[in-house]
């Protein structure tokens, strides 16, 4: 579904991603772990098409199509979703209106009519129940004054609304208390199917107890230095990253 080949990317002339290879098939869950500053958010941004980062080499393919020169909005229309580590506040635009715009723009791109208001309301009700989001919350300005946890839960609500093929969750677990984490994880699990894929970026094993990955990758200095099954996450939790750094240095 998603194929990343020898991906190199720069920001302000500095190379952040230094040759990433990753293949994510439909139905799979991949976890990406690694120390701060190793390039996890950069990888997520590049997949979603952020042109503040310059791809200097390699490629990202979605279902066989090279995404080079595909704008972020077109990637979204094709089924890429990024849950942001730091969601942006948009004063004056309610969560509901924002989602209406996002969904209808996506439909427009596919040559479909706007979603009828009745269906939209039903969808919003369904998905907000899935994530146990209060109705009142949906009429608030997007992310404005939301707590860290509310922002993250709202990101997953957006994911639920947009039903992407590939969802990248960048540190969605940080800022969530244990109850919220459980709700968000169960939401993600319900949205998961054999036709879509999830990439979880996280520091903690905790999230992976709820959303069990098929593969775990360790990113360090812009490269995937180790891949394994879900046991790798446990190993990292126990030993930290220092041993890994030494091992790769050898």
């Amino acid at each position, binding site marked *: 579904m998603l194929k990343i080949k020898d991906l190199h990317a720069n920001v302000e002339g500095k190379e952040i991603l230094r040759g990433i290879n990753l293949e994510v098939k439909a139905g799979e869950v991949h976890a990406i772990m690694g120390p701060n500053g190793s390039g996890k958010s950069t990888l997520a*941004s590049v997949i*979603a*098409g*952020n*042109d*503040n980062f310059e791809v200097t080499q390699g490629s990202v393919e979605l279902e066989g199509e090279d995404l080079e020169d595909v*704008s*972020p*909005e077109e*990637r*979204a*229309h094709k089924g*890429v*979703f*990024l849950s*942001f580590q*730091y*969601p*942006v*506040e*948009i*004063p*004056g*635009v309610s969560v509901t*209106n*924002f989602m*209406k*715009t*996002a*969904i*209808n*723009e*996506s439909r427009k*791109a596919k040559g479909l009519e*706007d979603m009828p208001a009745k269906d939209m309301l039903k969808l919003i009700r369904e998905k907000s129940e899935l994530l146990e989001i209060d109705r009142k919350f949906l009429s608030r*300005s997007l992310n404005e004054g939301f707590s860290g946890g509310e922002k993250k839960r709202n990101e997953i609500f*957006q994911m639920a609304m*947009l039903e992407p093929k590939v969802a990248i969750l960048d540190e969605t677990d940080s800022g969530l208390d244990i109850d919220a984490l459980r709700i968000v994880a169960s939401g993600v699990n319900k949205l998961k199917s054999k036709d879509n894929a999830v990439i979880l970026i996280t520091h903690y094993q905790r999230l992976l107890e709820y959303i069990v990955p098929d593969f775990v990758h360790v990113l360090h200095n812009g490269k995937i230095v180790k891949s394994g099954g879900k046991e790798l996450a446990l190993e990292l939790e126990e030993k930290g990253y220092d041993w890994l750094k030494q091992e790769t240095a050898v």
Partner: protein
Amino acid sequence: MAFENNVDVEHPVHDVRMAAIKNFEEKGFPSKKEEAWKYTSLNNIQKIDFSIFPKQENSLEYKDVKRYFIHEIDTYKIVFVDGIYSSYLSETTHDGVDICLMSAALTKPMYKQVIDVYFNKIASKDESLTTLNTAFSREGAYIYIPKNKMPKKPIEILHFSTGNEASLLLQPRNLIVVEENAEVQIIERHQSLTSNEVLTNAVTEIFAAKSAIVDLYKIQNDVATASLIDNTYVDQKDKSLVKIHTFSFGGKLTRNNLNFYQNGEYIDSTMKGVTILGEKQHVDHHTLVHHIQPNCESHQDYKGIYGDSSTGVFNGKIIVDKIAQKTNAFQKNNNILISDKASINSKPQLEIFADDVKCSHGCTIGQLDKDALFYLQSRGIPEKEARALLMYAFANNVLSSVRIPELKARINKLIAKKLGVNLGFDL
């Protein structure tokens, strides 16, 4: 421009007018040499041969101009067509409050007392354009709200120009007196209906007595051949609260001179503005808050979005007199330039003579936040719409204090239109 001898010697304010003419003749139009007019040139406007009085009266059908009213709600209306009062389009009242005409107030004995106390008392007697208005203005809105009263509905003051003159100079004169503990909401708009040249040189005097509340909303969305010079003077007494919102989305040249004088304690003066310009439009916001007494506040928040070759000016002057201790004066002017050819000159001007005051001012000029843009695009919202949403969000703070929901909805629509987007929902 030449002014015929149109001064009515019998008129009760004859002396006031003669003094004003004298001042204007001495000073003439302000030029760019004057500091206050450095960035706004009236040269081109002065070259136009304006008619001062239309030769012919024109009437308009309500259905043709309905869209310029906040027609979703019931309002009092004081409407002028080419400077002449249109009783047909207006809805005035004398039921407990006076919402009517300046010409009537200036001539009828029953208003004499109010006119004697307030007319031309706060308006400048030496600022040349204000005196030009004082000399020649014939008409405008007269609003008198007695103690403890509040009109049942908001008041709309509308000035239409029909374009039947090749070029027209309008000089409306408004007097708004809000007595102790009274309250009023006013919406003001100037609208040219054709592409003939119009210059409006308006003067508004507002008197807010003790604990009075005044909300004035200025909608400036005129055509590309209409220019406006707005001179508003506000006199505030103890504990009064006056808020002026200025929405500048159109017109050729717009100059807003808003002057607040705090003649009392515990006063709150607020000026907010959203400016969204394109093409070659020019808007100049010149504000003055004079803190004359202690324990008062002033708040200014102006947001500007400038595209194409549009130009903007923000000049915010705050004077804090020596005795005006415990003054809080805040001023913010944030701007986004969305074109390389657009420009903004933003300048705070603080003259503070008291030592125990809190003053803050900040002006920013920037571009749209790239991370925020990416966030919206990553949700499938195309770049153009994403930019519009961000601009809307940028201006939003100013809209939150608009207290008439239907007006707020209208402003939102104007903003969406100005930004050239249809977002699939009403902003």
